[in-house]
C-alpha cells in the first residue's frame, strides 16, 4: 500500500541527510577514512617498497606500487566502514532512529540511506587513493572493460562491507563498543596479501592470509588491473562479498527492528 510507494522517496530523504552529515564534517569523514591508506601508501612504498621489490617471491615484472594499490583500495574501504559504523551508531544511540521508528515512514529507508550514503563516501575516498597511487607511479595494464569490471567489484565489496558496518553501528550500544567491533576488521588487512606476497610469509601466517576473505578480493583486483592470473579467486571474491552483504543486511534489519512492532 502507501508504504511501498514511499520507499524510494524516503530513502532519498535519508540519503540526503547522510550526505549532508558528510559535507558538514568533511575533515572528520575524509581524514578518518583516508589517513591510514595514504600513510600506508607513503610508508610502504618509500620504506619497504625497494625491499619487497628485491624479494625473490615478487615477480620481477611487477612493480611494487602496482602490487600495493589494489590492497590500498580494500584498506580504504575498510576504514570507510569505520566512519559508516560510527555514523550509524550515533543515530542509533542518540535517539534519532527512535524518532524515525515512531513515524509512519518506509522502514527500509533509514538503513538504505546510511548504506548508500556511506558507500558513496567510501567510493570517493577510494578514487582519491587511486589518484594518489597514479601520482606515485601506479600504471595498471587494464583496458576499459577491466576497469569497469574492477569498478563493479569495488562497488560490490564497498556496499557489502558498508552493510556490515551499518549493522555493527546500529547494534552497538556505544561508540566504544562499535570501535572494538571494528578493531578486528582493521587488523585483517595486515594478515593478508595486501602488502607482501603470501609466499614470503611463514606457513601458518600464509595460510591465514591465503584463506581470509580480503585476499581473494585483492587477488581479483590485481588480476583485473595488472593482468595477473585470477583463476577461481574471482568467484571466491564475489562469494565473500555476497556473504558479507547478506549477513550485514539481515543483522542490520534485526538490530533496527529489535523489540519493536513490524
Amino acid at each position: 500500500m502507501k508504504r511501498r510507494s514511499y520507499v524510494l522517496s524516503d530513502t532519498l530523504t535519508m540519503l540526503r541527510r547522510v550526505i549532508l552529515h558528510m559535507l558538514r564534517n568533511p575533515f572528520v569523514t575524509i581524514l578518518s577514512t583516508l589517513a591510514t591508506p595514504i600513510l600506508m601508501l607513503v610508508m610502504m612504498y618509500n620504506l619497504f617498497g625497494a625491499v619487497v621489490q628485491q624479494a625473490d617471491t615478487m615477480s620481477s615484472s611487477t612493480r611494487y606500487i602496482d602490487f600495493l594499490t589494489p590492497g590500498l583500495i580494500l584498506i580504504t574501504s575498510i576504514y570507510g566502514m569505520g566512519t559508516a559504523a560510527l555514523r550509524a551508531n550515533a543515530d542509533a544511540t542518540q535517539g534519532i532512529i527512535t524518532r524515525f521508528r515512531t513515524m509512519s515512514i518506509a522502514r527500509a529507508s533509514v538503513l538504505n540511506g546510511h548504506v548508500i550514503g556511506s558507500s558513496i563516501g567510501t567510493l570517493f575516498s577510494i578514487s582519491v587513493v587511486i589518484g594518489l597511487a597514479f601520482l606515485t607511479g601506479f600504471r595498471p595494464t587494464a583496458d576499459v572493460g577491466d576497469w569497469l569490471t574492477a569498478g563493479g567489484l569495488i562497488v560490490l565489496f564497498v556496499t557489502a562491507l558498508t552493510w556490515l558496518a551499518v549493522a555493527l553501528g546500529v547494534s552497538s550500544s556505544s561508540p566504544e563498543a562499535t570501535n572494538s567491533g571494528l578493531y578486528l576488521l582493521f587488523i585483517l588487512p595486515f594478515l593478508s596479501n595486501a602488502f607482501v606476497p603470501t609466499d614470503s610469509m611463514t606457513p601458518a601466517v600464509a595460510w591465514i592470509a591465503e584463506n581470509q576473505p580480503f585476499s581473494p578480493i585483492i587477488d581479483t583486483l590485481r588480476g583485473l588491473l595488472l593482468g595477473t592470473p585470477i583463476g577461481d579467486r574471482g568467484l571466491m571474491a564475489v562469494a565473500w562479498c555476497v556473504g558479507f552483504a547478506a549477513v550485514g543486511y539481515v543483522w542490520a534489519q534485526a538490530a533496527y527492528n529489535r523489540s519493536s512492532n513490524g
Partner: protein
Amino acid sequence: MIDVKGLRKTFKNHVVLDGIDFQVAPGSIFSLLGPNGAGKTTTIQILSTLIRADSGQIRIANHDVNKNPEAVRAVICVTGQFSAVDNTLTGQENMLLMARLLHLNRREARHRIGELLDRFDLAEVAKKPAATYSGGMRRKLDLAMGLVGKPRVVFLDEPTTGLDPRSRQTMWELVRDLAASGVTIFLTTQYLNEAERLADRIAVLDTGKIVAEGTPAELKRRIPGGHVRLEFADAAQLDKAARLLEGAVIDDSALTLRVPTTDSVGSVRDLLARLDSALVAVAGLSVHTPDLDDVFFALTSEPNKKEAIQ
C-alpha cells in the same frame, strides 16, 4: 483517544508494567506520574509502537497498536528523553527532514515550518546547527519537529527534565496551547507541580501499577486533610499540648506536634484558643494544606525499598 486495558510488560524476570488501565479523552492532558523506574518510559514506548506489550488492549485514535502500528504512527508524535533532534543539521533542516518524510509538498512544508518556528520562538536560530542550541531550545525543536505532521496525540516523556525554570514555563505554555487546539496530550513526569499545573487527569504509577487516578483535586481529596505543625520551646510544653490534643503526632527530637486539621481558618483558630486556655506556650506554627507531594508520598513506595526491589 487513548484506551489502555490490562497492559502488561515484563523484561526478563522484572515485571515493569503489571496490568494497567486508563483512558484519555480527546483534547485533554493526561499525566502519568511516578518515581524513576516506575514504568513511565516503558508505557510511552509501548503506546508509541516502539516495543510490544506482553498483553493488553491498546487503542489510539481507534487504531489497535499491535494490529495496526502504522496507522498509529501516522497520528502520533513522541518527544522527550528518548527522542532526539539531528545535532548536525540546523533547526530548519531538521524541520525540513520531517516535512520530507511526511511527503508534504514544498509550499505546504515551507508554510508549516515557518509557522512552527515562529510559534516556538526558534525562527532566529533556525539557520544554526542544533548542536549549538541550549537544552530548552533543543526540547522546543524536538516538539516542533513532532508537530510538522499535525499529530492528534502527542506523547511527552518527561518534557521538562533538566530544563531551567524559564524554559520549563515556556514548555508548559506550549503544551497548554497544544491541548487547547484539540491535540490529546499524554505526558509522563516525576514533577508533581508539572502534573498539577498541566494535567486534566493524573494517574500515579508505582512499581508497574496505577495506585491512584483522578483529577488533581480528586487526588488531593484522597489524602486526609491538612495539618498544623506546632513548635514548642521545651518538652514540658510539648507534653502538655499532646495530652490536650487527641490525634496529634509527637516528634520529640524536634519538639514539634503534628495536629490534623481541616483546611478552614476556623479550625486553626479553635486549636489555638484551646492551647491558649490551657496555658500552653506555642513557639511556632505552620499550616500545611495537602498537595500532590503528600499524595505522592502516601501512594508510592519509599525510594530505598524500591532500589532494593530493583
